[in-house]
């Protein structure tokens, strides 16, 4: 198991127009994009959405291959949804029938569009993490969810937790590697046996990892207090988020597309 291959919210550094957009713009656009995908009904609307996705990928200069690589882990869900929709959609035009299964024309279309929808949904959200650094994403989320502070949602604390988690992922991965080597040197076997045996073998890995993580957390908390951390109150930021002209244009465009797709979808196009 190569721990270094673990990627979470992988980011492709770059300076494309998509990279330069404000993270809040991208977050709102992704939400609009998802809404529009669910409003899309037939070829016309899906074609519009596909054009939006293709355009965004093109502008982001992220290699198309990587966008599709993100689809691999969800392939099972895609196939599963497709099969379910294929067999369980009631309809008038029966294409084939065997045992308890009935395949209708409606089912075929529904399965087809469902597959397209899920794939587009995932590639779209992946494009967000590919073009936005985790810090900016956290900043954007904190800023967008800011109004929720009024109803006592600890937005700042959640954003801080997220960014500290991101900061410590590489450190903890490194530590896991170290502990694994140490345990292997003493004869631990992480790679053979059945599922239960392997899970058991992980125990001597998890215990020291957790102990060390708690110790780290304690030290980090002290260090943060030493640097005058006292919650989000009265805090300023080095990096200021600012909407630019491109952001307003993009937001308007996505809003228009969503409304347009909604209307067209309503008429079954």
């Amino acid at each position, binding site marked *: 198991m190569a721990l270094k291959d673990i990627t979470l919210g992988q980011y492709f550094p770059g300076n494309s127009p998509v990279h330069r957009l404000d993270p809040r713009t991208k977050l709102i656009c992704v939400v609009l994009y998802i809404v529009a995908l669910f409003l899309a009904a037939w070829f016309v609307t899906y074609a519009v959405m596909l054009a939006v996705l293709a355009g965004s990928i093109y502008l982001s200069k992220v290699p198309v291959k990587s966008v599709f690589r993100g689809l691999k882990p969800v392939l099972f869900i895609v196939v599963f949804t497709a099969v379910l929709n294929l067999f369980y959609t009631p309809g008038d035009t029966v294409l084939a029938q065997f045992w308890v299964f009935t395949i209708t024309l409606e089912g075929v279309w529904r399965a087809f569009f469902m597959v397209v929808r899920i794939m587009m949904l995932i590639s779209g959200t992946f494009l967000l993490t590919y073009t936005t650094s985790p810090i900016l994403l956290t900043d954007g989320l904190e800023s967008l969810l800011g109004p929720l502070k009024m109803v006592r949602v600890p937005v700042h604390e959640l954003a801080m937790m997220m960014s500290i988690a991101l900061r410590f992922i590489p450190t903890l991965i490194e530590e896991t590697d170290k502990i694994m080597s140490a345990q292997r040197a003493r004869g631990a076997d992480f790679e053979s046996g059945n599922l239960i045996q392997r899970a058991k073998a992980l125990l001597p890995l998890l215990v020291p990892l957790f102990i060390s993580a708690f110790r780290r957390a304690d*030290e*980090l908390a002290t260090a943060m207090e030493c640097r005058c951390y006292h919650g989000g109150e009265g805090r*300023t930021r080095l990096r200021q988020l600012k909407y630019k002209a491109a952001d307003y244009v993009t937001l308007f465009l996505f809003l228009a597309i969503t409304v347009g797709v909604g209307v067209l979808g309503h008429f079954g196009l």
Partner: protein
Amino acid sequence: MSAIIQTSDLRFSYPAAEGVTPVVLDGVSLSIEEGSFVAVLGHNGCGKSTLAKHMNAILLPSGGTVYVDGIDTADDSRLLDIRRAVGMVFQNPDNQIVANVVEEDVAFAPENLGVPPAEIRQRVDDALKAVNMYDHREHAPHLLSGGQKQRVAIAGVIAMRPRCIVLDEPTAMLDPIGRKDVLRTIKELNRTRGVTVVLITHHMDEAAQADRLIVMAKGRVVADGAPKAVFSRVEELRKVGLTVPQTTQLLWELRQAGYDVPLDALSDEECAQALYSLLMKNPPVTA
């Protein structure tokens, strides 16, 4: 010169476990002058880290008082003023870096203090230049070496513009090169910026570079003075389980053997000079 940190009869013990109250600090009275470079030396468990943690109100005394810049550390309402005046750097650089970009981490303290963004930028650049890490400002901390990470941690404290920095064994986890870099940075901060430095350490050679050396054992101060004077009290230091720098050790043993050498020649050059004059006085017998 005025005192930035003043402790009087400071006592501290951790909450009792099973009836025994381990006393960690047993009446420490110290006054750290503004602008000085003080090293605190002692064995593991002598209470030096506990003393450090009293210097910016992470721990509060069980008895006695600690004043930081004239403020009693027990005064909860002035906590931020105390922490702003005295910055703290710890042993493990990994566990004190908060952000995943160097400059963001250095900005953490000024952000907490509510400094306006333009001034944060200025403070961050200034702090990173002071520790010679400006070129790495956009790097991810986990890709830096131990010494570099520790310098980033120091920059993170400097950006707060403290009047005093307390470093709790900052070089304990570093390789020799990293140690040297960090120590040079600390000395430079003290000399060029007049920041008061309190260096907690168990390395003799690091302690020897300070203006003043405090030796602790069993929660008490056992020696306090200029490094040269403190180190020449070889027997006392040995009694509390500390060795002396190799130079002092050599001169001390020569002295035990009946040679007339000074004990306060601490640096390599001074020691060499002392040996040279000894040799000139007693030319070796050639066969």
